[in-house]
């Protein structure tokens, strides 16, 4: 199971970077709302970088082959055609990284506070998953969804754009100028796993409850 997830995640990563038909890489949620917000009680973030894996050349070749028109000869049976792994529609998770919470979709990237000791192309497992949702159902973590993991790859360890910290007191001849660039890490989310065995809430429960309350009231 572990090897299967790892291979799927590398396929996903290479597919996203090499193929032109990748999804829009910017997550619509995390881009404007990545501020330091009220955080919660302290939980130890278990952070397990694994050995960096080189991208599989076979999958990139087959990915390119798929984008071309179907006039080429059928590939030999060894090469597995690279397809984007199918998730449940509308799958998302809320994960807590660096004491900030993010809404996370598989295949998109997020920018988090700098993770010390993570090099580029490291695999990261995020264990603090607070909520997993799909189009029809919702796994609400109290406080976390047990055994749920979000796998991500470190794409880049960069710096935020510079902000100028300008301290000024009027009429007192005091001004200080400091430039500051906050270090950050960009993570590409590969997959969300391990939430299936958790009690979930679905739309059907809502509807059945509504009908029950309406019957009781009427």
């Amino acid at each position, binding site marked *: 199971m572990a090897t299967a997830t790892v291979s799927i995640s590398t396929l996903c990563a290479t597919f996203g970077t090499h193929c032109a038909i990748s999804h829009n890489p910017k997550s619509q949620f995390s881009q404007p709302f990545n501020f330091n*917000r009220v955080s919660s009680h302290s939980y130890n973030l278990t952070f397990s970088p694994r050995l960096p894996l080189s991208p599989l050349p076979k999958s990139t070749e087959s990915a390119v082959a798929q984008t071309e028109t179907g006039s080429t000869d059928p590939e030999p049976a060894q090469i597995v055609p690279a397809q984007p792994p199918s998730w449940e529609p509308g799958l998302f998770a*809320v994960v807590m990284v660096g004491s900030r919470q993010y809404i996370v979709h598989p295949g998109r990237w997020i920018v988090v506070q700098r993770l010390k000791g993570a090099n580029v192309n490291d695999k990261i497992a995020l264990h603090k998953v*607070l909520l997993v949702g799909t189009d029809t159902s919702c796994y*609400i973590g109290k406080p976390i969804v047990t055994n749920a993991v979000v796998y991500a790859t470190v794409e880049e360890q960069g710096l935020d754009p510079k902000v*100028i910290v300008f301290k000024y007191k009027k009429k007192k001849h005091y001004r200080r100028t400091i430039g500051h660039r906050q270090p950050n890490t960009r993570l590409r989310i590969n997959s969300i796993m391990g939430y299936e065995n958790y009690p979930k809430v679905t739309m059907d429960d809502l509807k059945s409850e509504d009908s029950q309350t309406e019957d009781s009231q009427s």
Partner: protein
Amino acid sequence: MNRIKRGYIARKRRTKIRLFTSSFRGAHSRLTRTITQQKIKALVSAHRDRDRKKRDFRGLWISRINAVIRENPKVYYIYSNVIYNIYTRQLLLNRKIVAQIAILKENCIFMIANDIIKTKNPPRRYFGKV
């Protein structure tokens, strides 16, 4: 003492400030003395508003959560109930996430509200004076 002309020292300093202020309106991007003043005001505002931004967004999220939660016509839900129940039921979601979910995935927020709120108040059908 030798005679020293000031040359273009002041001009070099002021062009950098002028570049910063280049998109400001009217005299604030044209006149040298106002340019220096406006740059100072702009930087001070930016510094102060970086802290204000955190407060402003939290208020925005609270308003949004309140608005969406009250929409539910069947049950009597309000923001204070939601937050109280989030804390008592030991969910760790913060207001930013709940507000985003409320806007973009309405089913999810109602599922969460249903799951955590156990209130016996009936829905308000009559909005006048009691």
